[in-house]
Structure formats: C-alpha cells, structure tokens
C-alpha cells in the first residue's frame, strides 16, 4: 500500500521537492526523538514569550530548536512539538514545509549555503561557487561521499554590502573570494571553525577604502529643552 502511494505521488504533478520531502518524511516518523534536558529549559523559555492560549506561536522556534539538536527535523520531532503546543501534527507539518530553513532529512556535518542573488553574483559569487564545487567534487543539493559537506544554494542572506556571502553552519562568511573560501573549507574539513564575518581587511560593511563617516568617537547630543 505504501509503495503504491509512493508511486502515485511520483507520478503526480507535484514538484520533485515535495515528492522527496513526503517520502523522506515517512521514513523519519519512527526516528526516536525527544528534546534534551537542557533543551526542555529552552522549550519553557520559548513558551513563556507568548500568551498561554497562543502556544502555536512557538511552533517555529521549537522547529529551530529540534533542528539545532538533530541537524534536521524528523517527523517524530514534529509530533513532539505538536503535543507541546497542543495542536494537530498536520499544523506543524504545514508550517515546517513552508519555510526553506527547515530540513526534512539528515545533511552532512557542515552545511554550506551560498547566496547567488544579484548583489552576490555581481561581486563574484559564481567564481566562489565554482571553487566550492571543484574543491569538494559536488554540485548544489549534494553531499560529499564522506558526509562532511552539504552544498545548498540560497537566496539573499541580508549582507549585500559585504558580498559574496557564504553561510556555513549558520555562520556568515563575507567578502569571500576563491582564495579565502578554499582556506575556510580546509578548516572545516579538519572540524576547525574559522573566524566568521568579513574575510577582508575591513571589520564590517564600512567602505573598504576607509570610513567616510563616523571617523571619531561619537558623543551624546544636546537634548531639546522642553523635556
């Protein structure tokens, strides 16, 4: 029955992604899951932010917590979250499937996400992507044979003035070039986390040729007299 359903799904007009998603989810229903003791404290902290009758607002933070714990979100985790927030599993599943950050199946030890949107492409993201693919021998969406790296293409990560941007395990690597990405990957291959942020001589998105504003320490300005 299950294989018939799976075949029907594959024949349907659903996108490739939802086919993979659905069939992989069926495999993770039986993966044992519970939050760790430390994470249960975080669960309580998360729930306390919202009114008691609005527990469903905790769904997204709890999905993040489950993914941080396991590296992905098995369906069993969604069932646990559904019981915590007292809502149907389908509600959690629906929310889970909508957002691109949530992963339905295990990934490599290190997840590389490269932005290929306009500002990053204009600053050389294509060359950086080619360098990553050449060095690791994988294409976008694939994982290396030793399960060390998974490479994903992402949309704008909100750091356009320090493009190109590569996010690895959630850390932003900015002003990345071919030379610097090779060095970063070498470090991660040895499970060493290199310094995140800009990989150039500037500290952040100030002009690399030198600051044009805020060159000296600011001070508190005069307040209006009627306060």
């Amino acid at each position, binding site marked *: 029955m299950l294989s018939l359903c799976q075949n029907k799904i594959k024949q349907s007009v659903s996108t490739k992604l939802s086919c993979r998603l659905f069939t992989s989810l069926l495999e993770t229903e039986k993966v044992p899951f519970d939050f760790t003791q430390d994470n249960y404290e975080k669960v309580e902290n998360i729930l306390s*932010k*919202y*009114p008691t009758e*609005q527990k469903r*607002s905790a769904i*997204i*933070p709890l*999905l*993040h917590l489950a993914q941080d714990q396991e590296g992905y979100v098995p369906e069993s985790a969604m069932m646990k979250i559904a019981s915590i*927030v007292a*809502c149907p599993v389908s*509600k959690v599943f*629906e*929310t889970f499937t*909508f*957002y*691109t*950050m*949530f992963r339905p199946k295990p990934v490599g030890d290190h997840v590389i996400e490269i932005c*290929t*949107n*306009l*500002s990053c*492409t*204009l*600053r050389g993201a294509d060359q950086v992507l080619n360098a990553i693919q050449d060095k690791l021998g994988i294409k976008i969406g694939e994982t290396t044979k030793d399960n060390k790296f998974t490479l994903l293409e*992402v*949309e*704008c990560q*909100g*750091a*356009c*003035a*320090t*493009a190109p941007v590569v*996010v690895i395990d*959630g*850390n*932003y690597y900015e002003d990345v070039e071919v030379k610097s990405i090779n060095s970063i990957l070498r470090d991660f291959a040895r499970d060493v986390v290199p310094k995140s942020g800009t990989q150039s001589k500037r*500290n*952040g*998105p*100030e*002009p*690399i*040729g030198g*600051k*044009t*504003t*805020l*060159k*000296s320490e*600011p*001070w*508190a*300005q*005069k*307040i*209006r007299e009627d*306060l």
Partner: protein
Amino acid sequence: MLSTFLKQPIGQERLVSSLVTKRFYGGLNDNNRIFTNLYGDYDSSVTGAMKRGDWQQTKNIISKGKEWIISEIKKSGIRGRGGAGFPTGLKWSFMPKNDPRPSYLVINADEGEPGTCKDRQILLNDPQKLVEGCLLSGYALGAKASYIYVRGEFKKEIASLQSAIDQAYEHNLIGKNACGSGYDFDIHVHPGAGAYVCGEETALIESLEGSTGKPRIKPPFPPQFGLWGCPTNVNNVETISSCPTILRRGSSWYNSFGRKNNHGTKIFSISGHVNNPCVVEEEMSIPLKTLIEKHAGGVRGGWDNLLAVIPGGSSCPVLPKNICDNVLMDYDDLEKNNSSFGTGAIIVMDKSTDIIKSIARLSKFYAHESCGQCTPCREGTIWVKSLMDKIVEGKGTKKDLKLLESLITAVKGNTICALGDAAVLPIEGLLRHFRKEVELRLID
C-alpha cells in the same frame, strides 16, 4: 549674504540671479547621525549606548503622553523605512481608541529584500536604539508588548538583540515599571525561518502565530485585526530605532533634513559594481551620484562606466545611467522617474553586466519566494522566470516578449500582497529602459 552663499559647497549647482542657491542635500555631519555605532567600532552594551545618548530622559518622554509622542513623530515626517514609505505617525494613529483587546507592536526585522543590509547593523551594533524605540513607540500605541520578528538566518543578530533586551530588563529600562514611568512593557524576539514573503506585514503576523507566511487580504489592516486578532502596528527596525532620537532632539531637527515629504536621514546599503560597497547613513534627497561617489568610492571604472542602478532593492524598477546622473535618493524623485525608494538598497551595475541575466536572476528569486496563495503570483512568477530564462539563453521569441508584457498587466495590482507587483516591476523597468537589448537577444 552673497559671501555666505559663495562659501556653501554648491558643487554643480549654479547661483541664480535672485541669489538663492539650490539646497544641497547630502552633507550630513556626524553630529546629526542617529546610528553612531553603525560599524560596531564602539561598545554596543547598554553602558556604551548610554554614553552615546541612548536612554536619556526616556521617563520624561513617556510622561509627555501618547498624543504628544504621536504628534512629534507625525511632525518629524518620518516615513516607513521598510520599503513602503508610509508616514509612520499616520500609521500609528490608525490604532483604535478604547478597544478592550490588548495591542501589540511588532517589529519587522525580516530583512530579505535583495540589496538590503541595514537593519542588520542596528541589531548587531546599536540594538539599544531599537529596544528604547520599542518602549517609546509601544507606549504611544498603548501596546502591551513588542515582538521583534528577526529573519531566522540572522543567528548572531538574534543573539545580540536578545542580549540587549536582557540588559535592558536588568537595568529596569523595560519590563515592569519601565524606566520608573509606571508603564509595564515587555519585548520578545521571535525568529523567522527563511521566507522573504514574511517581510509583508500580514504574512509576518501569520508567521508569528505559528502558521505558514501567507498574507491576509486587507482590509482589515493590522491596527484593526492583527496579531492574534488584536490591534497591531507593524514597523521596520530602522523606523522604530530612529524614534528615540527624534523625540529627544525634536521633530523640527529631523524635519530639517531632506526635501518636503521626504524628511530625515536614512541608512543606505550600496552594493554591486562600486569600488567600496558599504552601508552608510546619509541625508534623504542626496543625489544618487553624490552618494555613490562620496561614500562608495564611485562606480568601478569611473562614472561613465555605469550601466544601470536599482535604487531601492530588487523590487524597484532599474534606472539607466542618464537618469542616475541627476536623480535624488528620495521617495518623490524616484517615483517621478518611474522607480521607487524602497529600502534605499542601491545595486550598481557597470557596463560589464548582462542586464537581462541580472533581471532574470531576480525573476528566479520571486518565483522561489512566492507563497503560492494567489494564482496571478503563483503562476505569474513561474511564467516570468521561465520566459526570462528563455530570453537570456537566446531562445526567446517576439511572442514570448509579448507574453511577458501581458504578464506584467495580469499580475500587477491583482495579487493579495505586493510580492506580485515586486516580481513584475523589475521586468517593467527592463523593458522601459533596455528594450532594445532584449529585442536584440530574441531569435526573430
């Protein structure tokens, strides 16, 4: 009087016969900048922030009352810095009076518009401005609490903001009897999870409620039916973070910058083919050319190597060089030139750029980010992407171009939220200014 005029940095402006020069916009001094720790050179803790002027006289501002605060923000002329540019004071005044439901202030930190990277700097380096802004704005709105919705990818920024909030609680600046004012106010951080559409205010509210980020049909607007069905005001990080300084220094101070209806200062994000891509706070109505040359080191290869600029983030129609020569960076001048100010995210493209491929990349973005709820957007963005890809590859036909044009009409104004418009506006800009290049790429 004449000598005073002659000392002004008039640049390319000419002294007219009546001895009145055109006002020069864009000479903002550091002592008029709001975000004085934009680059994170100084202490971002509550102590460091207080040294720079934050949390001064907050209790006195609250004691002035809600009406005074709303009136000051209205008089300052500040418009929403998240892209829509709606007058903030007016938006606040839409909150219902004497409603038994609790009210909420929601902060939109879902910075996802390609080209935009300004709110990130506030969250990382000047978060106390946002915390104080939430308190003062929340008080003016009669809000019980504020939820700051930060995009999920911003893990470091979320940690920085949470630390700022924790410090503010420890110092009794927020929470029960905030700043000794008698007003109770809580602030919470809530993460997104990778959906550009959640930058739309009703999609953000849906996401905050634990659902998929599918926008609601408006009306009702959030002040009437928002978070958990309660009166809600959704505002951008930069807008709210500017409020404490406006209230402290005066609406007339803020109003003195920028042209009429385009007042204040703005954090611009400048990326692409410039020598020094950067984030910088400048005066509104600064000429685009001045902004790029003064702060971003100019276009690479010189100004004459410029091909086009997207002036306000990917949703804004592209402008060719001849318009960029003179356009001012404010809401009205960009609208006059068939573009928009958006988030002030400037994407510069020089003559090495394949402009059609660049716009096609944006089409891919919108197709990916469509929530799928309404047909014109769900189907339209996929069609726009596939037609643009076909044209980029040199396989497009005149019929494809005609279909692309008809899609602009079919989608624009016919979707539940502005993502549909945002998806077709770049195409509109491309066809308005680079139609010849597109036609040359067709096979017939």
